[in-house]
Each structure stands twice: as C-alpha cells, then as structure tokens.
C-alpha cells in the first residue's frame, strides 16, 4: 500500500499526465492530414509542456508558454492557414520521394540513440557546488518572476535589449516578405511624392 501511495503521489501523476498529453499531441501534429488539426494538436503539446514546467517550479515560463506560444504563435499559424486557404485535407499516404519515410524514421532512431548515448556519457560540466558564483541559485523565499527579473535585468541586460532589436527586425522582415510581389516600395514612393508636392504648394 505504501509503495502504491508513493507511485501515485501528486508529482508523479502530474508528470505522467503532462508527459502523455505532450507526446500524444506531438504525435498528432506530425500525423494529422489537416494543417488546422496539426495546429490545434500543437496547442495540446504546448499545454502539456507548460504542465511539466509547473511541475519543475518554472511558473513564469509556464505562463509565458501558454500566453506566447499557445496564445500568439499558434494563432499566427492559424491566421496564415486561414488567410492562404490551405485548411483542407492533404494526401499524406503517398510518399513524395521514394524511400523518404524509412530514411526519416532511421534518422529519428539515430537521434534518439544519440541522445541516449550522450546521457550515459561523462561530461566536463562540473556539479553544482563547483559552479558556485557562476550560477544564480533558485531562492525558495522569492517568487519565480522576481528571480528571473533579477537575472534578466542585471546579468542579461544587454541580451534583453538585443531581443527588442531582433523583434523589430523580424517585424520589418515579415512585412517586406509578405507584401504583394512586383509592387516594390510603390506605396512608400508615392507617399514621398505627396510630401514633395505638399511642400512645393
């Protein structure tokens, strides 16, 4: 009875549920024929991973996972799917290239084997007590958000500022990529001309 209670502890049950949900969702992302279903299964996976984050006490990241990933990125996916009108079934039975699937599964097995091999190897990374000074210990008396904020706005301040530059570049790049082809910067050019005529008047 004691063993059963240990196995069925809340932590274990939450972990198993989160892991199963994320793996099943991931499986259906790959196998579903409809891109919309794939996107919705991606949401399921992201929720499962968020549950695992909570069980690892990374509460801020769990919230961000749901808000940014499930809330923004998947909605962006769905927007593009609807905008392009590709929300129909596709034939995934036929192999586009002969022998592609066996090779893909072989490579997948290779990745898994490699990860298993790596996890059984010896590494130069020293254990936590040697890393003293370079690590920022998680302090149970502070909330997760406070701790992350402290590290991001001190040690990683430059990187944090650079992410804003990265996001601006990404937005500008997306606008340039997704505009109608063949129009160049016509809109911009006419705006400049308008300004010029206004100034002349």
């Amino acid at each position: 009875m004691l063993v059963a209670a240990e196995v069925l502890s809340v932590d274990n049950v939450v972990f198993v549920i989160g892991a199963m949900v994320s793996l099943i969702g991931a499986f259906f992302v790959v196998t579903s024929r409809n891109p919309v279903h794939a996107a919705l299964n991606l949401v399921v996976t992201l929720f499962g991973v968020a549950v695992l984050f909570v069980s690892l006490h990374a509460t801020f990241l769990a919230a961000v996972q749901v808000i940014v990933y499930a809330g923004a990125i998947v909605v962006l996916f769905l927007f593009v799917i609807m905008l392009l009108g590709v929300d129909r079934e596709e034939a995934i039975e036929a192999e586009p290239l002969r022998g592609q699937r066996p090779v893909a599964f072989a490579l997948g097995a290779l990745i898994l084997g490699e990860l298993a091999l790596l996890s059984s190897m010896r590494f130069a990374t020293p254990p936590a007590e040697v890393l003293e000074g370079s690590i920022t210990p998680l302090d149970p008396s502070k909330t997760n958000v406070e701790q992350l904020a402290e590290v991001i706005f001190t040690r990683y301040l430059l990187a944090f500022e650079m992410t804003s530059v990265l996001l601006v570049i990404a937005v500008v790049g997306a606008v340039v990529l997704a505009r109608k082809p063949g129009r160049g910067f016509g809109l911009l050019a006419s705006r400049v001309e308008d300004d010029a005529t206004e100034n002349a008047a």
Partner: protein
Amino acid sequence: MTLAALLAQGVPDRAPSVAHGAYLIIAALLFTIGAVGVLVRRNVLVMFMCVELMLNAVNLSFVAFASKLNDANGQVAVFFTLVVAAAEVVVGLGIVVAIFRRKKGTATADDVHILSG
C-alpha cells in the same frame, strides 16, 4: 560523475519527486518526433510546427537542468529561446505567405525555389 548519476541525485528543498532524467527522456522523445515530422511532412506550415516541437523539447530540457542544478540561468535561457522562436515564426510565416502568393493552392517545401530571382 556521469550525467545519469548527476540526474539521479536529488536537489535539497524544492526538488520534485519525479527524477529529472524522466523529463529529459520526454524532451528527447519530443525532439525526435519533431525531427521526424520535419523530415516526413512536405507541407511547409506543418514542418514549421514540427520545428516548434523541437524548440519546446529543448526548452523542457533547459528547465529540467535548471531545476536539477538549482540555477535560474537555465530558465532565462528558455526566456530568450521563446523570443527567438517568436521572431523565427514571424519571418518563417512571411516566407510561407510569399511562396503561396506565387503558387496558389497546394504549395509544399519543393516550391521554395520559385522565390529565387
């Protein structure tokens, strides 16, 4: 000390009762599913979703190691990964829209070459 032995140790205080190695196994499986998906599927959008799966697997292992080593830096790394993933999705979907503009209907990864020139 091997990584597996490192993972078998518990962290005092707020360690979850589930071993951290279990999280890494889930992360490895998620990463493999994502990698196979990128190799198997031809729909550019679904391939993108599989890339997101791989990013999530890496995030999960980052958080597992952060918890294992009791270090907030691992969680900060995930924060930055999220930002880069958002930027990547925005640009990637821009490229997908550009492909579909030039080729109506069912565009696949084989049609990316129409963007040249």
